[in-house]
């Protein structure tokens, strides 16, 4: 059985199981207790003595533990196969409506020099890397060919506002097309806000575009991470976040702005200050994005990077601080925790959230189409492995039928990954093939030494540990209410 902190998930102990009573499951030692999970997406936490009793077939059907294990499909001779089959079909086979998130990179230019930039941007003067309106139209056409009734077009860069006319064009053209298609259409702008003047803000608000930016924490930390040669990046982003909040307060029908904190080595010692900065601005959603050694971050990893264990420790402190704030009446949640808790506590699990190409697509400024934004970032760094087509040349079906899409899908399957197959977090976790390719030279990666896997296991350890504490669990369960916001 694997212990907390261990990357290995050996199923030892199952050898002594009583086959009539013990259904297939994975287990992990967590704080002196044993976490059991199964393919039905259920979990249970047992003391070590009870777990050994269960393995030996010694837990009675009538005792509360026996009833819990039976209800959660851990007791072999009490499995309801009809219900399990229906649930599996629903979870694994019926949730694939096609790509819904379409990232449009309207320019590679950027006016920031962030220490960790994943986007492999170019100088703001390189106007030749702006997407043309014709290419943008072709990208929107491909996005609309997805059978998914829900479509989100996400503007990225570079800094997308540097190519403002094409941002406007995409919104207007997509709305024009949607008169016929009638999809549930959304737009999101991912921007550093440095060029978001009031006129642009008003137009975007009128069009219902949602806003996402980066706010890494207090001024000193943010400005260290996100250098803006034209001024103080922290002051700018805070000012614009306040402007968006003011419009919402005045009745504008806008989603709450999202401010992602990218965690660099400089952040590790101050998770509390990072969260305080976000909640001070009235932001309920906290998103603590881990850094990956991809793009520019790979070159500066020695200075800004960290180990998965360091990230997990930061993350645990951040979650504790959010829980502490809750006791003071300050409501806020962490986004990755919400996504994972929905899977753990409500069985909401997209089986392949990193199913690049079938769940999301990315369109670069020059019309190249990638399985996802991460694949596009690698291409900007010279590795075009994830390119699956070209606007104007490829049909939508060509993109989906591309061998890289199929290979990525298999690589993201937890049933094809050796360590994932045995991992207690398998029913709730995800594999990221782009990370494996970029950092370990293969789509499949090598999970025992994979940085993404290390981070995810650390995050799950932190969350499952807190779920065992009734007070903390109550707060974490209350975060589920944010799922539809």
């Amino acid at each position: 059985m694997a212990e907390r902190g261990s990357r290995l998930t050996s199923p030892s102990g199952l050898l002594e199981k009583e086959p009539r009573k013990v259904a297939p499951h994975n287990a992990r030692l967590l704080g002196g207790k044993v976490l059991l999970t199964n393919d039905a997406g259920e979990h249970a936490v047992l003391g070590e003595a009870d777990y050994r009793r269960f393995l030996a077939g010694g837990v009675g059907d009538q005792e509360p533990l026996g009833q819990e294990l039976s209800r959660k499909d851990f007791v072999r001779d009490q499995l309801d196969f009809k219900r399990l089959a229906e649930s599996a079909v629903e979870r694994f086979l019926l949730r694939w409506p096609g790509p819904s998130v379409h990232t449009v990179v309207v320019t590679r230019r950027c006016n920031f020099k962030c220490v960790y930039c994943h986007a492999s941007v170019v100088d703001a003067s390189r106007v030749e890397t702006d997407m043309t309106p014709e290419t943008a139209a072709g990208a929107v056409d491909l996005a609309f060919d997805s059978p998914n009734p829900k479509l989100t077009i996400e503007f990225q860069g570079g800094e997308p506002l540097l190519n403002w006319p094409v941002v406007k064009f995409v919104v207007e053209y997509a709305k024009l097309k949607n008169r016929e298609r009638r999809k549930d259409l959304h737009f999101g702008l991912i921007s550093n806000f440095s060029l978001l003047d009031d006129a642009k803000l008003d137009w975007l608000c009128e069009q219902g575009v949602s806003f996402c930016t980066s706010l890494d924490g207090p001024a000193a930390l943010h400005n260290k991470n996100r250098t803006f040669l034209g001024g103080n990046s922290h002051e700018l982003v805070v000012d614009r976040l306040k402007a968006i909040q003011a419009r919402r307060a005045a009745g504008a029908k806008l989603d709450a702005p999202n401010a992602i904190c990218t965690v660099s080595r400089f952040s590790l010692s101050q998770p509390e200050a990072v969260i305080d900065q976000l909640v001070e601005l009235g932001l309920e959603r906290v998103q603590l994005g881990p850094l990956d050694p991809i793009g520019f971050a790979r070159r500066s990893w020695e200075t800004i990077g960290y180990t998965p264990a360091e990230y997990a420790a930061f993350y645990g402190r951040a979650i504790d601080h959010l829980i502490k704030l809750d006791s003071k009446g300050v409501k806020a949640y962490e986004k990755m925790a919400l996504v994972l808790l929905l899977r753990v506590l409500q069985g909401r699990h997209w089986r392949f959230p990193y199913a690049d190409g079938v769940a999301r697509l990315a369109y670069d400024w020059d019309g190249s189409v990638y399985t996802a934004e991460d694949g596009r970032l690698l291409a900007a760094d010279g590795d075009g492995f994830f390119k699956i087509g070209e606007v104007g040349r490829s049909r939508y079906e060509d993109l989906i039928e591309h061998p890289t899409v199929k290979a990525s899908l298999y690589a993201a399957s937890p049933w094809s990954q050796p360590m994932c197959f045995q991992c207690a977090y398998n029913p709730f976790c995800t594999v990221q093939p782009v990370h494996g390719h970029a950092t370990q030279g293969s789509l499949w990666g090598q999970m025992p030494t994979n940085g993404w896997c290390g981070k995810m296991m650390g995050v799950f350890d932190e969350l499952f540990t807190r779920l065992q504490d009734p007070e903390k669990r109550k707060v974490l369960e209350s975060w589920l209410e944010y799922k539809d916001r």
Partner: protein
Amino acid sequence: MKLDIDAKAREVSFSVPTKVYSEDALRIAAAVFENRCEASAGLAKGRHELTLKARKALDAKGLEALAGEFANELLNQEYRFVVARFNRKVADLIAAQTLLAARGGENPPAAPEGEKSPAFQAEVKKLLAETADEIRRTMPKRIAPQGSPIPPETSVG
């Protein structure tokens, strides 16, 4: 694992049993390590005999680490094949269903007729022309290093 190290030639050699490791696993591991070493293999007495030639100079310790990491990748790939064979039916079913659904079925619906109408096409053409005009009018040909557009009336160079 017994290693033969020749630091001067930047080479490390070792062997693994053919009963455990397939040629496919060897090929994939060699591809994964392509940037770090050139791998060559031969067969002798039920074993794959492998030689890794490092692409950059490594001392004996470095060559030993390279062989260890290569062997880990070999194990990773071979074990992956085992797991994939074990779960093949379910993985294939899900992948096939996912790809078919994402494609829009066997015969994806064609674009709505309305999008082919002259009125729609005219609107698209107008939108494209307006955007091209806005780019001409507002987008500077040159940008100051900090990203602020240089006003059109400012002559630079």
